[in-house]
């Protein structure tokens, strides 16, 4: 194993691909699951609402690292056999549920912040509930949730490093391993550059979105 910048970059890059895989799969699944959670947490059926609130409280009230351990070691402790490759899936499950809970609260805040008058204006014009939601309310909700969602998504990028606690070879894992093997500290510190570049790109995208939606006020 070489110690040139190119060698290190390549080795860390492989780890970062795993980080990105965890990041993007979490995002793709937690965005819709969060919507389901938010709808349930606003349900008129009291028991559904209560159960959802308890789940959100438990997930937001405990560290993500602990949740990763529970999902990874839990099945084995109960005597269940976990399939090959469960390690990554365990991390993914914990991330998806955790982020869905945070997203659901952002969605709920966005939906509840739309004034009742917007719904009523649609109603008196004879629009259906579906039309009111999709044609009147939705874009206003999106505009309101872009800033808090950006925050949460950027946090997710960095949270993927928690997966190294169950031995997933993401970038921090690779960085530590490399530093140990080569007796050098800088490769571990160098991992930060990968995060910075990726978060930089995301920030540009979110800024673009916010600008795109700045033509109206809610």
């Amino acid at each position, binding site marked *: 194993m070489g110690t040139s910048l190119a060698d290190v970059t390549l080795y860390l890059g492989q780890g970062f691909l795993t980080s990105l895989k965890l990041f993007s799969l979490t995002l793709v699944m937690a965005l819709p699951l969060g919507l389901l959670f938010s709808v349930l947490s606003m349900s008129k059926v009291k028991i559904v609402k209560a159960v959802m609130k308890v789940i959100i409280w438990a997930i937001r009230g405990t560290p993500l690292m602990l949740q990763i351990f529970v999902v990874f070691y839990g099945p084995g402790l109960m005597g269940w056999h976990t399939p090959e490759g469960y390690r990554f899936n365990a991390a993914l499950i914990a991330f998806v549920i955790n982020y869905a809970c945070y997203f659901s609260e952002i969605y709920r805040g966005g939906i509840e912040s739309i004034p009742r008058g*917007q719904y009523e*204006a*649609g109603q008196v014009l004879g*629009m*259906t509930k579906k039309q009111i939601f999709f044609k009147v309310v939705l874009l206003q909700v999106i505009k309101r949730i872009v800033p808090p969602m950006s925050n949460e998504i950027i946090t997710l990028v960095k949270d993927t490093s928690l997966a190294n606690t169950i031995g997933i070879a993401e970038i921090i894992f690779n960085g530590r391993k490399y530093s140990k093997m080569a007796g050098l500290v800088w490769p571990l510190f160098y991992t930060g550059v990968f995060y910075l570049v990726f978060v930089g790109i995301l920030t540009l995208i979110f800024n673009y979105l916010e600008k795109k939606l700045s033509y*109206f*006020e809610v």
Partner: protein
Amino acid sequence: MSVLQVSDIKKKFGKNEVLKGISFNLEKGEVLSVIGASGSGKTTLLRCLNFLETADEGTISVNGEKIFDGKNSKRKNDAELRKDRLHFGLVFQDFNLFPQYTVFKNVTLAPTLLKTDTEENINKKALALIKRVGLIEKKDAFPCELSGGQKQRVAIARALCMNPDILCFDEPTSALDPELTGEVLNVIRGLKTGDSTMIVVTHEMGFAREVSDKIIYMADGVIEEQGSPEDIFENPKSEKLKNFLSKSLENQIKED
């Protein structure tokens, strides 16, 4: 035949009885003003007519057809309710324009979604209405670029584009700066000559007197007195109405 017959409408919120039996008729082309102190039930009455609230008792008939009966109000499904609602238009106190759409799209959105006519006719009609409220040069502006008075004029055009039998106004100038009320009142005045049937809940006594064919004075959930503008303003009979009129006159003088 009256275009609107309202009979014995009652509405409670919990133990609070807001409407205690409201009845009146309205002929086609008439303008009815509803006046009264805050909390007298004026707004709730309008909301019951537009089915934003469901009255507990009473009936509402439009053009002789009974569209609401408190006895079996729960039997209607969403589609029927939406159809009944279209007899009425409502202009809100705080406009409630759709912020993400231009003036033009605000006016055309509902008719286009509900396919009330061909797209071409809807667009033509919308432009005519926007012109009528004097905002044709603002047709591509977004609500955040408009003044309060302009927003309310757009809201009026939007309501008219659905061809309601009866257009209701819920204190259309109360959220406006005093210097902006005039332009909105002028638009409403202009509609009177256009054969629109209107119900206006208002605190603008001068306007009510000038524009109305009929005035209802509400107090504590009942119609305390009703009649022509002359009856109400020159020969008020009940003590409550006399007090109310002298108080609003005082406020008027203070404002001027």
